[in-house]
C-alpha cells in the first residue's frame, strides 16, 4: 500500500471530507433530501463527496469502498436496504473512518460498525397515520373499508409503513383493509390502481397511500369516478411534499404523516462531532410531525420542498 500518498483530500486546508452515498433520485422527496445535504455541507464548510447509487445496493457498497480508498474523514449513507453491510462497514472501521447512517438503519448485530443513525422511522409514520384514523373513526358503528396503496413491493418504506399502519388500526375491529396493491410510489401507479379499486369495491371509505404521489394520482381516479376526495373518501398519506400539502390544504387529503427529507443540517452537526471524536447518541430521529388540513394551511407558505 501507498497509504502516504492519498491523505485526506481536504486535509491540507483542515476541511472535513464527507463521503455521502445517496440511494438515488427516485422521488421528489429524495431530491429534496440531496439538496438539503448539499446545502448544509456548503454552509458547514464540509467538503462533500457525493455519490448516487441509483437504487442499487451494489453501487452503494462500491461507493463506500471508494470512499475508503480516497480516505475521506467521515462516511455517511442512506442504505438502500437494511441488510448486508457488515463486510464493507468492517473495512471502513479497519480504515478508521466513522460511519453515519441517514434516513434508514441497518440490521447489523455489531453496533460498533457505525456511529449513529439519523433519520425517520417508517413504522412510526405508518402508525401515526393509523392512529389518526382510529381516532377519527372511533365512533364508527359499521365497518370502515380501507384501501391501501403500497410502495414498491419489497422496499423498506413500503414494508414498514404497511406494518405500522396495520398495527395501529388493529385497535378498532371495524377498520378493515379491503384491498391493498402496489402503486410503485408513483402518481401514475397510484392512479391506475385506484381506478380498479373504485370499480371493484362499491364502498370505499378510506385510502391510505404510502406516499403523497400515489395519493395525488389516486385523487384523479377518485374525481373521475365522480366521488369527492376528502369527503366521500378519507385520504391519508405519508411524506408531506409540497403538492401533497397543497392537496391537504385544499381539503382533498385529510391527513399526512410527515417524513422530512431536510436532515442536512443535523447531519453536518453530527459529522463534525463524530470527526472530533465526541460521543453521539446511537439513534437520532428527525423531527417530524403530522398535518391535518388546518395545520397544512398554516404550514404551506413556508414549505421548502
Amino acid at each position, binding site marked *: 500500500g501507498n497509504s502516504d500518498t492519498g491523505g485526506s483530500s481536504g486535509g491540507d486546508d483542515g476541511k472535513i471530507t464527507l463521503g455521502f452515498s445517496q440511494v438515488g433520485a427516485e422521488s421528489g422527496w429524495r431530491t429534496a433530501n440531496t439538496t438539503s445535504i448539499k446545502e448544509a455541507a456548503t454552509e458547514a464548510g464540509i467538503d462533500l463527496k457525493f455519490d448516487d447509487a441509483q437504487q442499487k445496493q451494489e453501487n452503494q457498497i462500491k461507493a463506500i*469502498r471508494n470512499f475508503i480508498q480516497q480516505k475521506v474523514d467521515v462516511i455517511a449513507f442512506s442504505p438502500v436496504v437494511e441488510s448486508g453491510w457488515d463486510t464493507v462497514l468492517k473495512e471502513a472501521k479497519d480504515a478508521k473512518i466513522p460511519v453515519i447512517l441517514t434516513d434508514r438503519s441497518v440490521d447489523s448485530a455489531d453496533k460498533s460498525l457505525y456511529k449513529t443513525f439519523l433519520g425517520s422511522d417508517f413504522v412510526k409514520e405508518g402508525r401515526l397515520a393509523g392512529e389518526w384514523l382510529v381516532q377519527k373513526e372511533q365512533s364508527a358503528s359499521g365497518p370502515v373499508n380501507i384501501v391501501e396503496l403500497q410502495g414498491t413491493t419489497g422496499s423498506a418504506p413500503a414494508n414498514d409503513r404497511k406494518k405500522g399502519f396495520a398495527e395501529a388500526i388493529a385497535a378498532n375491529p371495524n377498520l378493515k383493509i379491503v384491498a391493498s396493491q402496489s402503486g410503485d410510489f408513483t402518481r401514475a401507479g397510484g392512479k391506475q390502481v385506484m381506478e380498479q379499486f373504485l370499480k371493484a369495491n362499491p364502498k370505499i371509505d378510506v385510502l391510505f397511500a404510502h406516499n403523497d404521489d400515489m395519493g395525488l394520482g389516486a385523487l384523479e381516479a377518485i374525481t373521475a369516478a365522480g366521488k369527492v376526495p376528502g369527503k366521500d373518501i378519507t385520504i391519508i398519506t405519508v411524506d408531506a411534499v409540497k403538492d401533497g400539502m397543497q392537496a391537504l390544504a385544499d381539503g382533498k387529503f385529510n391527513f399526512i404523516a410527515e417524513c422530512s427529507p431536510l436532515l442536512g443540517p443535523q447531519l453536518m452537526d453530527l459529522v463534525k462531532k463524530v470527526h472530533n471524536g465526541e460521543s453521539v447518541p446511537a439513534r437520532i430521529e428527525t423531527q417530524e410531525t403530522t398535518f391535518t388540513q388546518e395545520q397544512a394551511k398554516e404550514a404551506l407558505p413556508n414549505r421548502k420542498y
Partner: protein
Amino acid sequence: MTTLSLLAARTRSRLPRRHVPVLATLVLLLVLYGVGVSQYRAFSNIQVVFNVFIDNGFLLVVAVGMTFVILTGGIDLSVGSVVAMTAMVSAFLLREGLPAALVLLVALLIGPTLGFLMGCVIHFFDIQPFIVTLAGMFFARGMCTFISGSSIPITDGFWTRMSQQRIGNPSGNFVSISVLIAFAVVAVAAYTLAYTRLGRNVYAIGGNSQSALLMGLPVGRTRIAVYTISGLCAAIGGILLSFYTLSGAPLIGVGMELDVIAAVVIGGTVLTGGSGYVFGTVLGVLVLGVIQTLITFDGSLNSWWTKIVIGGLLFAFILLQRLIGIRYK
C-alpha cells in the same frame, strides 16, 4: 494516443482481424484508467483495481454465462432476477437453519434448473429467447418477493467467512474470495469455449444455426446447454452476491441483465452471435466498473448528472472502439 498508434502499427501485420475489437477495448480501458489516475491521486492505489474486481465479481460471473448465450445468438434476460432469487433462497434457507453446505447445493441448483427449462422451451417450441427469458425474469423476481417482502440478513458462519476473508495483506491490499471464484469461472469458461466441442458448437450455432443443424451438430442440446450454463453462472453470481452483501434482498439486481449484456457487447461479442471471447467480457465488465469508480471518485456529480456522465462515457468509449475497429478492418 501514442500507445494506440504503436499498437496499431504492430497489429496491421500480425493480428488476426478477429482480435482487433478485443484489443481496442483493452487499449481504451487502459486509457480510461489512465484518465482516472491523472485526475485523482488515490486512483493509483492498486487496491482501487482490486476493488473493481471485488465489487464486480458477481457481475463478471453472470456476464461469462451471458457470453455463452449471446455467442449462440440468443439472449438471457432472466439473469438479474435469478441472481436475486439465488441470494434470496440462500438467505431464507439459512435463516430456517439449514446447514450451509446443503443451502449452497440447493441454491446452485435453482439457476441451472430454470435455465434448463427455459432452454427447453426455446428449443422445443421454437419461441424467441427474449420472451422466454423475460417470463423467466418475471418468475424469478416474483419468487423473490414471494419468499419475503423484505431483505433477509445472513449470519451463517461460512457465509460470513467467505464474505470477510481477505486474501493478500488484510490491512493493505487484498481481494475477496469471490474474486478468486470469479477468475476460476472465467478460466473454465474460456477453456470450454476454446477447447471443447460444446464451446465450438456454441460458435457454430451463433454463426448460422441452420448450417450447424445441417452439419450434424447437436444444436438443440447445445442451445439448452448454454441457457443452463447461463443459469448456473447466474446462480454462482447469486451466491457471490450473497457473500458480498451477506443478505438476500427482493429487489437486488434489478436491471442487472442490461449491465451484463452491455458488458458482454462492449467486450466485443456480437449480439447476433458467433464471434466474441470471454476475455472481452472481462474487459467489458472492467470498463463498466472503472466508469463507476471514476464517478464515485469525482464525487461532485448530482444524481442526474451521474446518469448523463455514465451515458456519455459509455458513448465515448464505444465510439472510439468502433472507430478503431473500422480502421483496422
